[in-house]
């Protein structure tokens, strides 16, 4: 009897956890679903693969897509008619760009192409300094994009759109809405590291580990609260090396060069698009100005790791986060956001 009680208390019922990796175009997507029927979870996996593929084919910045057709039209100073389904993201990008004081600037597609990041394999060399300066001087911003009904035109011939900094966050938001429509209310959607969670894992919250941008392992963990996104932008994600120097892909639209001062920024926010855009903008802003940009973008919880490895974190996130690294980093608490 004693043994039976002991074994029963150790045994765990099989958990209604469904996990699948989707090899979508341009992204590896990990979905975790709690408490749904296996058939429903499987159907959700297939539906999400289609979502991610469709978004990839629509917004790809250099392979033929709806976006490259828009850019071609804008280059020729024409009016470009677009499908109504593209308008929400275009408007959202405009709004976020304005709030970030153009530090998140999807209008600098030409600059990104000049650096060779419109390639599966960016190699360098870095572009000619004068060519960079010429593009920066033309200062294309999302305010130059005029949206009239379903017609776009550009007030600045240098404007070319690139949604690399929010495309993945947008896809994650679309996927989560799709899961909800299918009746799934407890899940994680993780697209190449960009995460949005809904609900819980049974009785406990979903637990997320944040990878250490300084190397291997997990720097910190956090328990998510209901519907919430966590997105990190890091200079280690895409880069090329040339003559021993590393050039990463997060360009500062003000200088035209890779942003300096921070190696990663993690943002927690309700939706993944805002978290995605803000993580880029805050990284560009750097350790001195990130707080102002976070405030103007409505971000309440964020963490920036500077090039010296110092963690700058707001008090709200600091209360929730648990540092996991064996040698804890130096942490500097910022003012509240």
């Amino acid at each position, binding site marked *: 009897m*004693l043994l039976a009680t002991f074994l029963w208390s150790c045994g765990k019922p099989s958990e209604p956890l469904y996990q699948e*990796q989707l090899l979508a175009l*341009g992204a590896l997507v*990990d979905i975790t679903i709690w408490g749904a029927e296996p058939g429903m979870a499987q159907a959700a996996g297939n539906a999400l693969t289609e979502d991610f593929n469709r978004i990839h084919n629509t917004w790809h910045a250099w392979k033929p897509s709806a976006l490259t057709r828009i850019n071609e039209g804008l280059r020729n100073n024409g009016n470009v008619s677009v499908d109504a389904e593209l308008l929400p993201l275009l408007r959202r990008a405009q709004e976020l760009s304005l709030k970030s004081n153009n530090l998140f600037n999807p209008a600098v597609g030409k600059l990104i192409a000049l650096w060779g990041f419109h390639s599966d394999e960016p190699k360098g060399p870095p572009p000619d300094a004068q060519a960079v300066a010429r593009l920066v001087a033309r200062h294309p911003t999302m305010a130059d994009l005029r949206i009239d009904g379903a017609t776009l035109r550009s007030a600045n011939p240098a404007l070319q759109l690139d949604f690399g900094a929010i495309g993945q966050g947008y896809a994650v938001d679309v996927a989560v809405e799709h899961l909800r429509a299918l009746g799934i209310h407890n899940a994680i959607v993780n697209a190449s*590291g960009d995460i949005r969670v809904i609900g819980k894992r049974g009785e406990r919250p979903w*637990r997320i*580990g944040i990878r250490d941008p300084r190397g291997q392992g997990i720097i910190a963990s956090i328990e998510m609260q209901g519907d919430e996104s966590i*997105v*990190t932008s890091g200079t280690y994600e895409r880069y090329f090396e040339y003559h021993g120097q590393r050039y990463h892909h997060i360009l500062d639209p003000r200088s035209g060069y890779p942003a300096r001062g921070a190696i990663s920024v*993690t943002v927690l926010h309700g939706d993944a698009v805002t978290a995605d855009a803000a993580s880029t903008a805050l990284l560009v802003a750097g350790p001195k100005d990130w707080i102002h940009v976070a405030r103007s973008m409505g971000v309440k919880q964020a963490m920036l790791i500077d090039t010296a490895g110092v963690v700058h974190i707001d008090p709200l996130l600091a209360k929730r986060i648990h540092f996991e690294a064996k040698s804890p980093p130096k942490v500097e608490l910022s003012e509240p956001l």
Partner: protein
Amino acid sequence: MTRADLLAIVLAVALLPYLYFTYWGDGARGEQARILVGGKPFAVISLAHDQRLSVPGTLGESTLEIHDGKIRFADSPCRGKQCVHSGWLELSGEFTACLPNRISVQVLGREPRFDSINF
């Protein structure tokens, strides 16, 4: 104390090492890796033994290397080699892929400390 009670106690003590490793072990480190090709299961392999493994993908063979409880893409026939640059995976829940070659790898653990990894 009856013989049955004694037996129960002996068995309970014998179970302690299992319980220790299950509930107090380093749950963050993975034990196995699941490999998918084109989204379909290809293999689940232990990370306990160092080895190199060839996995046939769409473009050709990718080489996975297991060393010291970690796994990585050592080589792949893709152009960008982003899979190779993404380095070692060792924590339960970590994943990477060679998207052009349609091969993905995820580290599995018995009792993962994290439900997903942000990077």
